[in-house]
């Protein structure tokens, strides 16, 4: 199509990884202050944040009534929280079944869906040049 194509400067990035010795050198300077986000303990205890937030907003909801509630909604405390929780769980839990029904191998249509070998570092892809 055109002689000009974009080639990401991936080579440089990889070259940098080779030369890295200290573990912190490959972390972005800004990110060094946020490394706690990758901490296992923080990850495990993160659950308390939404739980507390949810409880507080349910309690606040008891005081600040909805101005235009649905017909029976005013009698259910935390109605949106319940609805949100159920809806979210339903969506996520349906994923397994959906995947069984709709999931196919990536080469199903035989025209990609696979990442471009020029970009990808995935061994499964770089091994075979499907685009030739």
């Amino acid at each position, binding site marked *: 199509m055109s002689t000009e194509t974009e080639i990401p400067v991936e080579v*440089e990035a990889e070259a940098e990884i080779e030369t890295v010795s200290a573990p912190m050198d490959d972390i972005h300077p800004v990110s060094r202050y946020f490394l706690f986000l990758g901490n296992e303990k923080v990850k495990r205890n993160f659950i308390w944040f939404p739980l507390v937030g949810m409880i507080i907003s349910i309690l606040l909801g008891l005081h600040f009534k909805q101005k235009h509630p*649905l017909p029976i909604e005013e009698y259910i405390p935390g109605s949106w929280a319940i609805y949100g929780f159920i809806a979210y769980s339903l969506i996520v839990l349906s994923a397994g079944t959906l995947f069984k029904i709709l999931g196919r191998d990536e080469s199903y249509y035989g025209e990609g869906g696979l990442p471009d070998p020029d970009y990808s570092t995935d061994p499964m892809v770089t091994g075979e040049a499907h685009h030739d």
Partner: protein
Amino acid sequence: MIDQFPILAEINPGLWVILAGLICTLLPVGRARKAFVIAAPIFAGLIIFQLHSVTAAQHLGGVMSFGPIELTTLRIDRLSVVWGYLFCLAGVINGIYALHEKCRITDSSALIYTGAAIAGVLAGDMITLFVMWELTAISSVFLVWKGGDHAYAAGVRYLAIHVLSGVMLLAGAVMHAQANGGDFMFNAIGLDSPGGLLMLLAMGIKVGFPGLHMWMQDAYPKASITGTVILASFTTKFAIYALARGFEGEPVLIWIGAIMTCFPVFFAVVENDLRRVLSFSLNNQLGFMVCGIGIGGALAMNGVVGQVFVHVIFKGLLFMSIGAVMYRTGTAKASELGGLFRSMPYTTMFCLIGAGSIAAFPLLAAFVTKAMILAAAVENHLYIPFLMMLFASAGVMEHSGIKVPHFTFFAHDSGRRVKEAPWNMLAAMSISGFLCFYLAWPFGGYQQLYALMPFEMEHAYKPYTWDHVVFQMQLLFAAIFAFTLLKRFKLYPAERRAEILDVDWLYRRMGLNVAMWGSAMWDRLSANMSRARTRAVSTVGRRLYQTFSPAGAASEATPSGLAAVLTAGLLFVVLVIAYFAR
């Protein structure tokens, strides 16, 4: 500017952008092209601004007639001007995002595409609308094809579907205009004529009605990195404009829109390719707008307009952040990413802003506008669509609010250590990120958005009330809590590489198989047929030959003989018709 050059008031500003794109096709200098890419939408935006402030109600221009058809190629009124500004703004942001890419095809087709979208929403008549409708399709397919060889087939499908949509739009427009005494102005259409139905279907394809949506999730994830960002900004929003103009308050749209918000949620949760997840999310957002158009009335329509405006910005932001990740890592598959906040902190922040905006956190973009559509649904006692949209809001939180940032930037560390995104990408993302805050800012921010809204509201909707904030937070916290809970109990499905079937299976697999089977059958049939025919013809021919010509010339039946028989047959038909004529 308009005073010195009155011609500017007659020419659709989008055409200037298209012209810039045409110049770029020939311009070999990369920097000059980039200057056009940034300057052309700004120029168009300035003209729109001037024209709109000159006449408050509406500005018509560029009237010309083609034979019996009168075209009004430029109409700037309170509805279309919003899209005009929006597309110019998106054009500039996309231009900045693509500054690093030295590709003539991308630059020129992006400009032509942007210009066609601007010209299309500012078109006053249906023929101009159709022309721009097709031009957006034709110019944007190059962005899909720039995605590489594996995008070629998807691009062809994209083009075919959009051209079909355009032809349907034209046919519908002609039928509708005929029913209205040859008036081609594009105003409310309604569904009482076959033309209106055809036009709705054409717009439905472009906006991604359930079942007609698959081109979007097919083509967008395969386009080039910048291409996806640009594609996601215009096509579908252009169609939303057409729907808002033509089919406001059409009850069937409420249900179509409600279904449209729900079904992509299920596909997004199993999908592994994050750009496809975002395409499903785009489809789901469009559902809210379609539903709002179906509800109609000042509140819902203003909600739709506002939603379109902020949607382009935050959806662009999400696509840009995933694009930046893909630019650095080479992939957008959730299964191959993770832990990238260690190397791309700014991108992470922008992605989180985009995710928060789409999930409608207070102080972030969609909080104001989505609530207007939901409030309009409750106000009109449309409880079931309301609940469906609320369900979809939880779904939005799932796929765009949590899944996209979580699997890209957090989750388990993929070990990829890459550079932060290039400066121009960060600049584009920071503009969008700023707007996400600004357009929902309670003190003088969202009021700016309100000032743009076309319909007068008796009581301006107040988004920052206690009950709204509190109940929205209930929904969001509950969703996050459900996520962490499911994660903790290992119930959250792991990301797996797969191709997920959708409606496009009908034409990509079943249709193809049927066609291949049909072609094989046809080959056999025609072989048999021709054998049978030669046998029959040669038998008759031999008889004729034996009868009429004792010493043989050509004994084979020639095509000219067959044609002569046909001629005689047709003459017979004509004579019979003439004989039995009244």
